[in-house]
């Protein structure tokens, strides 16, 4: 079953609504498990969700301040409308109360029915321009089942190790299988889900993504040559040259923030909600640089990242980052005289410092390609100087480090990221004690129980 991003964005009515909404949601967020209003754990297809109010703060010079928005981010199994129907069915009071503070909630001046509320939510769902799933296909149910399987298995080994180590590896596995068949209900029927052949093929190719892209680019040229001859090829080359030249021009004109200060007014609130458990949530909002050109490059980069996430990065590893459960990017167009913004949400393992570090160490190219199209809310410009969206970089080649570093400018980038962050009012994780690596390992343990390949490798996973 497929995992889907829900991003419901609704304008908050006014200052009064803003205050009331915050007052209503904050205590729920502080007591996510035991509050009397909503227990997210009863929603059996919900992995993570967050409610956040984002104010356009501080307003940029000469630009209207956008209305504060309430964003509901959810990462779910299956169909969006089914999930929305379920949450409204189970928690009508909560959902009505929350959205009664938002523009467009009332139906002809009256409180809408549950169905009408559901339609309102669906109409305001912006999904995601790019969506990354740590382990695609792993439903909440499967993740839970595989974790039970592992715990049962580990407890069995703990209790019987002295006996087991005297056996040969295949006999150890046999004893484990027998024990699981006896103790775990439905063990024989719950077979591991097979990875589709196409995804398997893409996983094999994933270390060679660069070559695949090069090959595809060449194929395009050959195709153009066959259809339009040399003129066609020259035309495309010319387009690329104009695009590159203009991009460089824009990048040279952009100014980075020379200070390295963490001066966000939200810093204290962020620290209050971070590091409460093994996982964290990151919400970031930032202006897209003005003009159509940057919006175009950003849209293209996100399209590409979405493609990589869907096709290649399907094994808990987004170009070297192994701590992301779910991440998404959403372009949020502004109304008249407002700026277009980029929203980013991530549900990740470990600390902020580690997360940002992994980004810089392993994925600075993608990161720079996205955020070099944006600028800080607080002051014009801001993102560390970049050339050609930062895509020309190879850490093994000295000359590429002569280019301005983009996200590799560690401290400037961290300050930029920190200042773009907003604290959420509610954040829920269905499995706060499982890391991406744990889920992957549990999956492999499950697969190994139904396969004879690499027995010694399988035993190491226990």
């Amino acid at each position, binding site marked *: 079953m497929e995992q889907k991003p829900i991003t419901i964005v609704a304008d908050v009515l006014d200052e009064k609504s803003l205050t009331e909404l915050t007052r209503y949601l904050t205590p729920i967020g502080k007591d996510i498990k035991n509050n009397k209003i909503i227990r997210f754990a009863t929603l059996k297809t919900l992995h993570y969700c967050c409610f956040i109010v984002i104010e356009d703060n501080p307003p940029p010079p000469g630009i209207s301040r956008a209305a504060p928005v309430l964003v509901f981010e959810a990462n779910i199994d299956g169909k969006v409308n089914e999930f929305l129907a379920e949450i409204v069915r189970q928690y009508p009071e909560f959902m009505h109360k929350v959205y009664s503070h938002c523009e467009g909630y009332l139906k002809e001046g009256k409180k809408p029915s549950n169905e009408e509320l559901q339609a309102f939510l669906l109409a305001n769902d912006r999904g995601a321009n790019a969506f990354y799933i740590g382990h695609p296909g792993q439903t909440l149910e499967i993740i839970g089942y595989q974790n039970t399987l592992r715990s049962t298995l580990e407890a069995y080994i703990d209790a019987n190790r002295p006996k087991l180590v005297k056996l040969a590896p295949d006999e*150890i596995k046999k004893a484990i299988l027998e024990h699981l068949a006896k103790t775990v209900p439905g063990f024989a029927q719950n077979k591991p889900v097979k990875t589709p052949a196409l995804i398997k093929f893409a996983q094999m190719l994933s270390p060679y993504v660069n070559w695949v892209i090069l090959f595809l680019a060449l194929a395009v040229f050959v195709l153009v040559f066959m259809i339009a001859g040399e003129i066609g090829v020259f035309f495309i080359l010319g387009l690329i040259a104009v695009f590159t030249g203009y991009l460089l021009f824009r990048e040279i004109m952009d100014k980075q923030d020379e200070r390295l200060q963490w001066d966000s007014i939200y810093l204290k609130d962020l*620290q209050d909600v971070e590091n409460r458990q093994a996982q964290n949530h990151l919400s970031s909002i930032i202006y897209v640089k003005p003009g159509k050109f940057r919006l175009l490059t950003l849209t293209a980069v996100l399209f590409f990242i979405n493609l990589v996430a869907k096709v290649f990065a399907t094994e808990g590893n987004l170009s070297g980052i*192994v701590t992301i459960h779910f991440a998404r990017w959403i372009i949020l167009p502004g109304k008249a005289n407002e700026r277009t913004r980029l929203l980013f949400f991530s549900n990740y393992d*470990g600390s902020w*410092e*580690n997360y940002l570090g992994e980004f810089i160490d392993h994925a600075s190219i993608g990161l720079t390609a996205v955020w070099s199209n944006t600028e800080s809310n607080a002051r014009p410009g801001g993102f560390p100087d970049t050339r050609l969206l930062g895509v020309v970089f190879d850490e093994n080649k000295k000359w590429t480090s002569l280019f301005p*570093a983009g996200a590799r400018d560690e401290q400037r980038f961290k300050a930029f990221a920190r200042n773009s962050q907003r604290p959420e009012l509610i954040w829920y994780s269905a499995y706060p004690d499982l890391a991406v*690596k744990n889920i992957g*390992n549990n999956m492999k343990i499950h697969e190994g129980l139904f396969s004879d390949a690499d027995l010694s490798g399988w035993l190491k996973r226990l």
Partner: protein
Amino acid sequence: MANTAFTDDQMRDTQGLVFSGYGAFPYCSYYLLQIKDPNKARSWIKRLVDEKITPGEPDKALRKQTGALNIALTAAGLSELGVNTGSFEQAFQEGMQSRSRATILGDQGKNASTAWLWGSDDKPVHILLMLFSVDEKTHSKSQKEEETAFKQGGVVLIKDLERFDTTNLNEEKGREHFGFADGVSNPLVEGFSSPTETGSGNEQAPRVIPTGEFILGYPNGYDGKVTKVPGEETLKDEEKFGFNGTYLVLRQLEQDVQTFWTFIRNEAKKQKIDQDYLAAKIVGRWKNGAVVKPDETKPPQITDADMALRNQFDFRDDYDGKGCPFGSHIRRTNPRGQGLGIEQKVENGQLTQASVETSLKVANRHRILRRGRSYGAFIENPLKENISGERGLFFICLNANIERQFEFIQHTWVNSLKFNGLYDEDDPLIGTYASANPGFKRSFTLPEDPLRRKVCDFQEFVKLRGGGYFFLPGIKALRMIGG
């Protein structure tokens, strides 16, 4: 790109502790001080800088001296003396005792700052004065001199506290209180003209860490960028207050030696394994300092000069943790060439050079220079003696970015239950996850053939008694304070 090279003159403008743990001076006292009269304190500091302070010495002139003196200040201390701390690193400004830092460090429950002997908001520290001497006689003479001087200098010891004298465990061949060789792993730093330490990595490729990871104002581990030098924004880096300074982290860690060895004895008996084997697996090293290699059940014979097994190694031949377990203390505090989140390729029973390189590059962005010393009497046989008194480690480390270096190690490596793909265990030796999370049951996994061994349900062995984030300014900066 930074082009500031580290020269002998720069070295002389940096306090000596950066370059040396002063092994030649076995006698040492730490004074935790509070400023009562800022004006007097400034002239006291001026005199220290003119007459006493020990700078870095490129030509080993240190050897001719009979002692050393260095000082470091907390954010509160700098403010008292009129230094604006607004441009210092966030973690330093907030201080180790603050709620936000405590959350990251896991300093909660019995380790919470409210229970500390010093360093909490109630008992703030302003200055750390470190005094080292070559022998006892010299030491007691300098102690008297300095104590008189700071008393006249408007500075007092924190209420109720004596000075902290350290124990010379060097006579015990550099052991720490649990009985293991200590201080064997320190990074080799670029531009230090007389490296006293060896680098991690291996003999073919010794690792050199950029100067800027440990001294402010120089290229750091990120393409030679310069870590933010605190001081007036308008000045050039070389003129700022923070130039040639670094952040100093101090933690007084009490070690419960008897509980540790009692646990080891009982557990080894229960599992029918050797005590020293179990203890070595927990630390990741044998008592003599050699890293535990796959299939070893006894320590290898090594000489003090044999650094290959003590520091110049990585984990390319131990990628499944069958020698030095993934969760062991030394693998957590410096994972070296071990896939930090990156895909690892194995060829011929070893990690490939490329896997090791990428991983080392990441690990080396989170290194610290360790400069601490032990305190309290050493116990030769912890299982037999009737033990009294407190003992432990004054952990001191130096780094250019507390959050990316010291705090990162503590949060992401030491106290993380998920380190290296593990599920629910923290550092068995120094982890404090259970204090911060009541109800948590500690465990430790030893990868073995054919099935992993597990040690469950054991106590914590280390308790935090006090701590603070300090700044170890350059000599010129100290003169700026002195006025």
